[in-house]
């Protein structure tokens, strides 16, 4: 069989719609996981032992169970509790929770990398613990964590393809439909493969630029 990409031409708008859906899911989920990750990172660096233990258990559990199993757990489990939500919301929630476990590690190492002197200076200045955390610790930690958080985002783009397993027609799901419509699975999936690779490559370059931009003025061994 000849490798012929032109048969995909009429299906491009459909694939594009899938790509937009993927982007929406990833955008919402990365926001969700950074918020969740920041909360968990706070818990993991707190002085209360039960809180630390709980946060560690969450991270450990969600990092060591396959995402597909987590996804099925939510997708089939939530209706059992009487919560009926669509595949899109389920996907965003599952991705946020799984991504939060990875994001929390990135933010936690950002928090631990802060010089104690900065925090001591803030304490001496009479700032409350809350203000120290929200105004000093978190901004610095998030800024130094941009690069690892970018890795989390790249991983999330790749992981979002799994959402096609719960009937969400994002890019991979649309690709499946186009493949079965045209009977040209090789071309479709080859294009998807290259597209995902190019996309994640572009995202990681953008994240690197952002990291350098936000961390200018900080010595290189910290940033």
């Amino acid at each position, binding site marked *: *069989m000849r*490798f012929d990409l032109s048969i995909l031409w009429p299906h491009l708008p459909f694939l594009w719609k899938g790509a937009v859906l993927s982007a929406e899911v990833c955008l919402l989920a990365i926001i969700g996981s950074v918020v969740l990750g920041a909360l968990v990172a706070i818990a993991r660096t707190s002085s209360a032992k039960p809180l630390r233990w709980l946060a560690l258990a969450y991270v450990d*559990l969600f990092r*060591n*169970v*396959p*995402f*597909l*199993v*987590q996804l*099925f*757990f939510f997708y*089939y*489990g939530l209706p*059992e509790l009487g919560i009926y939500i669509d595949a899109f919301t389920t996907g965003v929630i599952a991705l946020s929770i799984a991504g939060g476990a990875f994001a929390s590690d990135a933010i936690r190492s950002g928090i631990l990398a802060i010089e104690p002197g900065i925090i001591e200076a803030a304490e001496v200045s009479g700032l409350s613990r809350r203000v120290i955390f929200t105004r000093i610790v978190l901004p610095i930690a998030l800024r130094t964590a941009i690069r690892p958080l970018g890795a989390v985002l*790249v991983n999330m783009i*790749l*992981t979002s*393809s*799994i959402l*096609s*397993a719960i009937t969400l027609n994002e890019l*991979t799901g649309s*690709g*499946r439909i186009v*493949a079965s419509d045209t*009977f*040209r*699975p*090789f*071309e*479709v*999936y*080859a294009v*998807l*493969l*290259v597209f*995902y*690779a190019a996309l*994640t*490559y572009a995202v990681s370059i953008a994240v690197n630029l952002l990291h350098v931009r936000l961390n200018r003025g900080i010595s290189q061994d910290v940033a």
Partner: protein
Amino acid sequence: MRYSSFTPYDIVLLLQGLGVSVGLFLATSLIGLLLGTVWAVIRYYRVPGLWQLMSFLAELLKNSPVLVQLFLVFFGFPAFFRVNMTPVEAATLTLSLNTAAFVYVIAVSAVESVGRDQIEAARVFGLSRWQVLRHVIGPQASAFAVGPLVALLVNQLQVTSLISVIGVVDLTKVGNILNLRTLKPFIVWTVVGLLYYAAAKLIAMLGTRLENRLRAHSAWKGL
């Protein structure tokens, strides 16, 4: 259709699924480790033409969703190359190549972690290139690489759950079957998740023991 409750035979079914998952994981990891190391050696000797191709292929495999790779091999290859492919064959091929791509990256950075001066010193002492690889680079690089490799293997175990989508009856597929039969998603997916968790912890534990042994020569022994 009548929904039935759990039977004792379900335990056998779950263990069978776990066996398929772990078996495929072990087989693909072994092939991936060998293949990835061969790629790294090709790069180390800078085989003209071949090593650029290897780098490109590794980047492509690393930066695209495993699910799309699986679909490309399982649906695309039979249609395009007119070959027959069972789900297990497609899964083995895809996961091996995917593992190899990550192993390649780890192996390359491990080789680079050994200082140039050591290699030069060894060459000056009259060791052949093979002897340098075997006695100087090999031991140090493997001690360096074992940590990232264990993290990779834990991750690859979770990736095996995706093969259920193309119809391999692994642990996740068994979970799916039980879920549809009993309609008790919480119990089913919790049990499946815990089995994956236990397997991941086992790999991590074995990895730590191996790492400690490989690093024994450089460990601080006291005065």
